[in-house]
């Protein structure tokens, strides 16, 4: 019989309502025997008492229900974001606050490159915070005139490149006629490229290959390190193309003895007919392991609100921009939902705009009548503009919602001023309304769009502070314990994993977030500042200090 390990902690917040707090947790074979007092747990037989966490607070390992593993790969490029952000190795990169600072940072990185023909790539630039400064190729030419330079914006949909990059891509010519390519006074492109279709011809020359969204070995390991740093033990990759090579790589890396996370990739809906998609995902399901939970589908219904490509209901965009774009035809959405319900496959749908959300509700209702499935847990991802009526309908339909709480902090001011206006901006990511409607709810970072960090995400939902420091939507704040539920049990529920993870109770995986202080005892404004010591995943201990 395997030996039991009993961990003692200053406090264990179990997220198990029938026993919310404990001082000890007993672990055997990577699973939880029980949580309680030492006397209670010794009844399970021989044990080793592990006192490493005697002065720590344990929580269930955090569950991030909407992230992308490309966050791990992006750190091989130069971080150019406005906000301070730590990389997988723990180095804190200070935010870039001006064009000069950007150029300086890129120059330093440029000087370190040995191959004179290698491109220099950066990521996470967000000129919104620099008074919407428009960068030009002349700015990046200050970094290098001989080396291609390309900086991807935080949105992922815009890139700035230098003259050399345009030249290599054959786009350094006057008179190009494309809405995604602004031209300068000289008739030549300014170096700003808006939209994937105009980024692609230049991408390969600036280090952004076409398959950059697919994770690689190193990227996945780096992604996992970020998880340990943030107390995350289960995370989604939403979504992945999951070709054979990627699946084999994921199987290999996630089975490594030191790999600290359970990864749940969702198959992106594009590229296959609906029937083939179902067949492919069912086949992936049979290859799933404990650490790699394959067999789900992600559908993207519309675009983004700040990119004006989300589908909004009346009265549309506040600045009068035309309505956004459908990324899937309603008929195809319907077909996939029918087939997935029939096959018992979990589907998460990206809907940013409220019209996109409404389409999913309208489409799922008849599909459910045809294929009744009371426990489908299809989840509205982002769902940023949903109103109370939509939450009520979604709840009735058995759906879950995963709100983009971080977005409210990073872009809430923009939405207030520009995209949707004060009224709707105030109720964006309306966590209070969602919980009141009874819909199971998670909250997310969408890393790399915003940094991974469930405690930060909880802070964002609890305080609803925007980047400028305003509280936006006092009435939509949720309580600390509700936010902590959302980043553990809430997210686990949306993944159909609430029977395995999300709380510290008998039978579940021994997945813990090991914290230096108690998130239920601190000022709610300090929630994001709680230090994460590391994690325990499947009974294995991963201290941040050892990364």
């Amino acid at each position: 019989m395997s030996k039991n390990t009993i961990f003692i902690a200053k406090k264990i917040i179990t997220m198990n309502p029938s026993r919310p707090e404990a001082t000890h947790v007993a672990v055997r074979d990577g699973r939880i025997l029980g949580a309680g007092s030492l006397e209670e747990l010794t009844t399970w037989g021989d044990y080793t008492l592990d006192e490493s966490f005697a002065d720590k607070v344990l929580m269930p390992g955090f569950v991030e229900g909407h992230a992308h593993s490309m966050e791990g790969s992006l750190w091989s490029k130069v971080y150019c974001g406005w906000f301070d952000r730590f990389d997988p190795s723990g180095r804190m990169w200070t935010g870039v606050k001006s064009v000069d600072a950007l150029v300086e940072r890129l120059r330093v990185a440029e000087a370190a490159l040995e191959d004179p023909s290698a491109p220099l790539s950066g990521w996470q630039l967000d000129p919104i915070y620099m008074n919407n400064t428009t960068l030009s190729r002349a700015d990046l030419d200050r970094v290098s005139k001989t080396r291609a330079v390309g900086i991807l914006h935080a949105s992922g949909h815009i890139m700035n490149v230098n003259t050399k990059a345009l030249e290599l891509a054959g786009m350094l010519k006057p008179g190009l006629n494309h809405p995604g390519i602004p031209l300068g006074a000289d008739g030549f492109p300014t170096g700003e490229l808006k939209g994937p279709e105009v980024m692609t011809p230049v991408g390969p020359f600036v280090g952004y290959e076409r398959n950059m969204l697919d994770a690689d070995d190193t990227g996945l390991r780096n992604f996992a390190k970020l998880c340990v740093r943030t107390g995350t033990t289960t995370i989604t990759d939403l979504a992945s193309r999951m070709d054979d090579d990627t699946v084999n790589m994921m199987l290999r890396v996630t089975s490594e003895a030191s790999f600290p996370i359970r990864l749940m990739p969702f198959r992106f809906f594009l590229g296959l007919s609906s029937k083939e998609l179902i067949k492919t995902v069912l086949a992936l399901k049979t290859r799933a392991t404990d650490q790699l939970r394959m067999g789900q589908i992600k559908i993207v219904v519309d675009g983004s609100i700040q990119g004006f490509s989300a589908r909004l209901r009346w009265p549309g965009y506040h600045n009068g921009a035309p309505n956004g774009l459908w990324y899937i035809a309603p008929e195809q959405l319907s077909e996939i939902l029918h087939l997935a319900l029939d096959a018992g496959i979990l589907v998460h749908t990206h809907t940013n705009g409220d019209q996109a959300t409404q389409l999913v509700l309208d489409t799922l209702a008849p599909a459910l009548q045809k294929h009744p499935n009371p426990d489908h847990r299809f989840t509205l991802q982002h769902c940023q503009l949903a109103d109370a009526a939509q939450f009520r309908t979604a709840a009735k339909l058995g759906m879950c919602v995963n709100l983009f709480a971080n977005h409210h902090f990073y872009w809430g001011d923009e939405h207030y001023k520009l995209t949707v206006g004060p009224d709707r901006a105030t109720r964006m990511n309306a966590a209070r309304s969602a919980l009141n409607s009874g819909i199971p709810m998670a909250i997310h970072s969408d890393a790399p769009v915003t940094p991974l960090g469930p405690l930060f995400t909880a802070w964002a939902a609890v305080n609803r502070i925007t980047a400028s420091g305003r509280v936006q939507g006092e009435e939509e704040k949720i309580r600390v314990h509700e936010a902590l539920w959302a980043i553990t049990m809430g997210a686990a529920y949306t993944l159909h994993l609430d029977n395995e993870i999300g709380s510290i109770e008998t039978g579940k995986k021994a997945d813990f977030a090991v914290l230096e202080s108690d998130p239920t005892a601190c000022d709610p404004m300090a929630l994001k500042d709680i230090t994460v010591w590391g994690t325990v995943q499947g009974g294995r201990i991963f201290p941040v200090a050892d990364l």
Partner: protein
Amino acid sequence: MSWKIPVIVIGGYLGAGKTTLLNHLLRHADGRRIAILVNEFGDLPIDSDLIEAEDDEIIAIAGGCICCSFGSDMTAALMRLAGLSPKPDYVVIEASGVAMPGTVGASVALLDEFILSGIVVLADAERITIQANDEYLADTILRQLSDADLIVQTKIDLIQPQAAKDNCQWIATHNSRAPIIPTTQGKVPLEVILGIQRTTLEPQLSGHSDAEFTSKVFSNISACDPHTLAKNIAIGGFGVIRAKGFVESLTGQTYLIQIVADRYDVKEFERAEPPAIVCIGLSNKLDIKKISYEIARAI
């Protein structure tokens, strides 16, 4: 001038008949090497009897044509096609049912190896006005129509002639510049969809057609300003759907003129060619007299 591969974007909502039209093109390719780019190998867009071989990336089709899927990265797929040897004579992109064909076309125009040769949008005769009233689809449908150089009203056998006329009038309120071509089963002459072949400047219309088309060659063109002539033919309201030809400039340089509806392209040609222009239009719309007059008065 280096040869650029003409690209035709076929747009229109789901069920508008894009697949049927593609198969019609492939069936009557008649030696043209057409590369079809589809969004995804969904329900396979190619009739099975046309397929010679297929793998994950590419479907080989009788007569030297191919079909590839591009998933979410059309530009990369086009760049791969440009690297083929021999290069395709035409690339036809089937835009997804919710895509904006104008955006697809604008992206094509960025690539040096290609020239956008027309945006063809299909409208399902039976359903277009219903779709245009759908709360989710209305703006998508109207934006697609307004992007078109040519509009093909498909499945007209399913509606009354008067309804087809009403459709045309309604479409014209959203796009007054695109000729509207009626069809059943995607039967449109290949020259109308693809443009006139580069090798022939003879009247030619291939593939069966439901509507009556006229193809007319105009020769005896005196040296003139090719840009002005191309522009006048394109925007003159003469019912020209496609035109192609050679014109000599006042300096003696030969120019290649290509027209789709009201859009035209004029380029210097590498060698001297006898001046001549082929124009194609619907028989009841093509105004040969006025085109002749326009050519005669060109200077």
